[in-house]
């Protein structure tokens, strides 16, 4: 199972900061992604695509996880050397394709 099977996601930017959001489809799915997509798991995956340090915010009331990477887009979106503009809107694929550890113990 991958994160995208049980959660939706979207990425965006402000200045040089990239932000990624995951929202789980139900409580059980939220518990799974909350345990699987830790700050360090997200950092390890995202570090292959961009610089910067990942900060995770958990918002259990919204069943959502928020990942913010200051300095991921050096110089802002118009300074990017990617093909075309706004590659960062596709960056959410990194998190959606992460595996979910469904064997993690329940609370």
């Amino acid at each position, binding site marked *: 199972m991958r994160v995208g099977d049980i959660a939706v996601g979207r990425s965006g930017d402000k200045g040089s900061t990239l932000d990624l959001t995951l929202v789980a489809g139900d409580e059980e799915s939220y518990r799974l992604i909350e345990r699987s997509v830790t700050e360090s798991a997200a950092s390890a995956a995202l570090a292959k695509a961009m610089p910067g340090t990942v900060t995770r*915010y958990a*918002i259990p009331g*919204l*069943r959502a996880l928020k990942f913010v990477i200051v300095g991921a887009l050096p110089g802002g979106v118009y*300074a990017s*050397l*990617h*093909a075309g503009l706004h590659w960062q809107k596709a960056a959410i694929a990194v998190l959606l394709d992460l595996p979910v550890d469904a064997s993690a113990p329940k609370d």
Partner: protein
Amino acid sequence: MVERSRTVRTIGCGAGFAGDRVDPAVAIAASGLADAVALECLAERTLVPGLRARKSDPAAGADPRLRRRLKPLLPAAGANGCRVISNLGAANPAAAVRQIAALAGEIGCKACVAGVVGDDVLTKKDQIDWQTPITGQLLGAHAYLGCEPIVEAIARGADIVVTGRTADSALFSAEVVPILNNHPNALAGATTVGHLLECSGQITGGNFNPIGKAALSAADYAQLGFPLATVHPDGSAEIFLLDGKPGIVDVLNCTLQLLYEVHDPSSYVTPDVIIDFTGVTFEQVGPNRVRVAGARSRGRPARLKVSGFVDMPGFIADAEIGFAGIGATHRGELAADALRMRLRDIPEEDIRVDLVGVNSILGDAAIASSAPPAEVRVHVSARCADAEMAQIVEDEVIALTLSGPAGGGSIRSERRPRLDVVDGFIDRDLVATELVWESLP
């Protein structure tokens, strides 16, 4: 005309970026359900060409798509008592007011047009707390205004309000402010609704993969409805689609949009209010209808955000050459390596070479496909000091057709001016706004 309530306000989103579709705004105005349609059309890529145009022609600098967008919209809005609020003024809101008045006269629409001036703070550049040093030529500096000047324009009878740089959410909340109660959370709620609506189709099923329900069809995406919201005096609201318009409004995409381009969810800073989103609740109350409540105010920020636009010398050259058929990836990799050798004088941090179809978006984070792609494109982007260097990069890509691996073709290139967007903050008291008017009898 549909009889509308005096105790709630209904606002629609007519555009979520400069080049957004024109027809959804017309549908919202024509429905008779909306007190106002707000069009968010201003990005750096719109503002900067406007700033450049204004340098040589003081009457230039408004959004060049203004006419295309408003010509079909104004008659529908006028006939249904639907106000039009937009940041189409771009780098020159006063000029936009004159252009809109002229257009309204030409197509026989009676309209009182107001413009908000004052976001341009370039003359106060030394009083701005810049977050990073400015290394190139500062082309412009624009503060994100709040809803107050728009609220004043509405109170004084404007049918159309056009601004320059204004917080996206303020274009929406301004219409609602007159009915809000005095609790600070009411403004937080109305501003949250603006934030939810400001990206048009992103809250009605665009850029969204639903879980547990059918995905939208190509025809649905082609005709996607844009969102509306009916806002109550306490700032709570229902987000919805017009009947018959394709799309999905559900709790999941509302939640995604709430957190979109937000950093700390307990402290989302807008010019009017700092909002805590962590207590927001969404509830599906009908088909494609979601109720939102629970945004909390954390006060008003003392300073306004400023975007500084810095012209950097040179260009980014962005060019590609394609390869097709069996072995396309191998030939593409050879071409990429050859290109790196040819362009080795460009510092590593100023050049990127990759394969479209393999790793051009996610780089090393891309997960390799077990089946090789049928086609790949070799892409190079390089930061170039001048036009001559950009030409060399583009020519090296074309040279691969004659001197590179077999079957290279389908070449394209673009050359982008270099632009740095620098954030800063300015004391609210230093930003003075005023309204400019054109009224048709």
